[in-house]
């Protein structure tokens, strides 16, 4: 039986990894991920599970150690944030190319400079093309659920890819809230021990992470892309099984009050909750607004997006990061591209919001939607807007 408890979400993320009986944690602490690191360390130090905690001197080493451990067939968890993730960047595509099913909790935080420790998505967006599966959690419950789902997805024989679970720093990591903590027996049934396809073992030597020049590199890249694309089927199946076992449904793009919605707003991460309250208020005023909450960023849910926006006149895409000198926010850029070949598509507005921890309240989301409702299909001068920016 699941148990309803009050717990800090960062601690809950570590507890979820413990429920998955990880073998190795290789983690370097960084704000606002530190409580995940500390708690993983506590779990190992207290002997609660039979695992190793590898202390490393950097995030680059954390991921490298995670890869080495994973290659031996261990179930590996790690966690980082912001500059730590940027420092890890070099090794991330190697983990995916080596098809190592590492699970990483990312406490999303702005990147320097200027130095900022608060929440946005500018740390994960530069990792977009690393070949990892990328999930975004909206609340503490989703953090716990996705951490457990992540191992099952990552280790599936048809996937064999690393997964990152994105957890808004502070907004989620530092929040004490109620959630259902699944029972160990239930998790054991859902997630059997990891059976690797191949491992590093002296008795049965194999090569991993080899040299590949122009004769095979393209083929390896195509294979990696196919692995990512094909992983969606497994992700959907794992989510179906999760719903059956634990009663909570997951979708690549979750709709909220989308029936009859002419204006849709798309969010990723914890702001979906505050935005949902704004949608409720707008509906009370008779504004036909709805919300799309994107939970799956990689592989990108093309079909689900096309289906979700059908019938909408306007789509407001919120971004928590900037592609400087580019299309505005990275999410909007991808959404525009995904809908380009559709015979009919909504007008797309890109609002860059909540950078470096700038708070977004219910009334801010309402203002964004009401402005879009007023403008209708009238083309905007700018392709994107820094919402609420102060200018002289």
């Amino acid at each position, binding site marked *: 039986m699941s148990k*309803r*408890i*009050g717990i*800090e979400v960062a601690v809950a993320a570590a507890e979820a990894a413990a429920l998955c009986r990880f073998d190795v944690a290789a983690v370097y602490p960084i*704000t606002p991920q530190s409580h995940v690191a500390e708690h993983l360390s506590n779990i190992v130090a207290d002997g609660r599970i039979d695992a190793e905690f590898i202390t490393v001197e950097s995030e680059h080493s954390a991921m490298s150690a995670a890869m080495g451990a994973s290659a031996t067939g261990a179930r590996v968890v790690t966690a980082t944030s912001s500059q730590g993730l940027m420092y890890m960047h070099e090794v991330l595509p190697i983990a995916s190319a080596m098809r190592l099913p590492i699970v990483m909790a990312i406490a999303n935080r702005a990147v320097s400079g200027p130095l900022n*420790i*608060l*929440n946005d998505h500018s740390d994960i967006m530069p990792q977009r093309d690393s070949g990892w599966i990328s999930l975004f959690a909206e609340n503490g419950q989703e953090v716990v659920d996705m951490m457990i789902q992540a191992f099952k997805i990552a280790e599936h024989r048809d996937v064999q890819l690393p997964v990152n679970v994105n957890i808004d720093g*502070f*907004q989620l990591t*530092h*929040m*004490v*809230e*109620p959630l259902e903590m699944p029972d160990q027996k239930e998790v054991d049934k859902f997630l059997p021990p990891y059976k690797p396809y191949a491992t590093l073992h002296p008795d049965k030597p194999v090569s991993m992470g080899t040299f590949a020049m122009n004769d095979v590199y393209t083929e390896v890249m195509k294979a990696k892309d196919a692995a990512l694309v094909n992983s969606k089927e497994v992700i959907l199946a794992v989510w179906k099984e999760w719903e059956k076992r634990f009663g909570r449904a997951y979708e690549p793009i979750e709709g909220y009050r989308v029936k009859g919605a002419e204006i849709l707003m798309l969010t990723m991460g*914890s*702001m979906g*909750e*505050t935005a*949902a*309250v704004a949608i409720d208020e707008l509906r009370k005023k008779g504004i036909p607004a709805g919300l799309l909450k994107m939970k799956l960023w990689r592989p990108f849910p093309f079909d689900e997006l096309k289906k979700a926006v059908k019938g909408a006149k306007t789509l407001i895409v919120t971004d928590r990061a900037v592609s400087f000198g580019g299309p505005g926010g990275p999410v909007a850029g991808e959404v525009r591209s995904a809908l380009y070949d559709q015979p009919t598509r909504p007008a797309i507005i890109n609002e860059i919001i909540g950078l470096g*921890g700038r*708070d*977004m*309240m*219910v009334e801010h989301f309402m203002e964004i939607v009401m402005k879009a409702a007023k403008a209708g299909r009238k083309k905007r001068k700018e392709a994107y807007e820094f919402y609420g920016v102060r200018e002289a």
Partner: protein
Amino acid sequence: MIEVRWHGRGGQGAVTSVELLALAAIEEGKYAQGFPSFGPERRGAPVAAFNRVDGKQIKIRSGIYHPDTVVVLDEGLVGLVNVAEGLKPEGVLIVNTAKTPAEVRKTIKFKGKIAAVDATAIARKELGVPITNTTMIGALVRLTGIVKLDSLKVPVEHRFGRIAIKNLTAMKRAFDEVNIG
């Protein structure tokens, strides 16, 4: 929904207070959030921490700007930070002080309800240290009924182990002794 803002200094345990209060509310089957003011913290510097408690699921994840209740752990913060900022006129301000609510009112720009309790004296007597975070929960519970005092037993015991009883005694004393102006 009740929103609470706590004022303290880094190291005085405001974050522990919001955690204990959230856990007590969740223990009662309610929904609750407990969170610090986001960002770096330094020992001794003014800090704030926050609670939301409701009977139904709480979706709002923005900051709290118009609390129903403000709790001040350190009297020295009054005048240093605007502890009544954004506090709803019908709300309540609870201060750890040896002064009476009427005396507190002279130093704070707030027309609503003010309550005062000498939590430092209680904590010194019951805990042997002037750490007032658990003591002040008692005063908050008395003023707001946000949770039952009994609901704090499990979280306080879990957090403090063998010294839990002292904290619970201090909490009960603040509940009884708070002076409501």
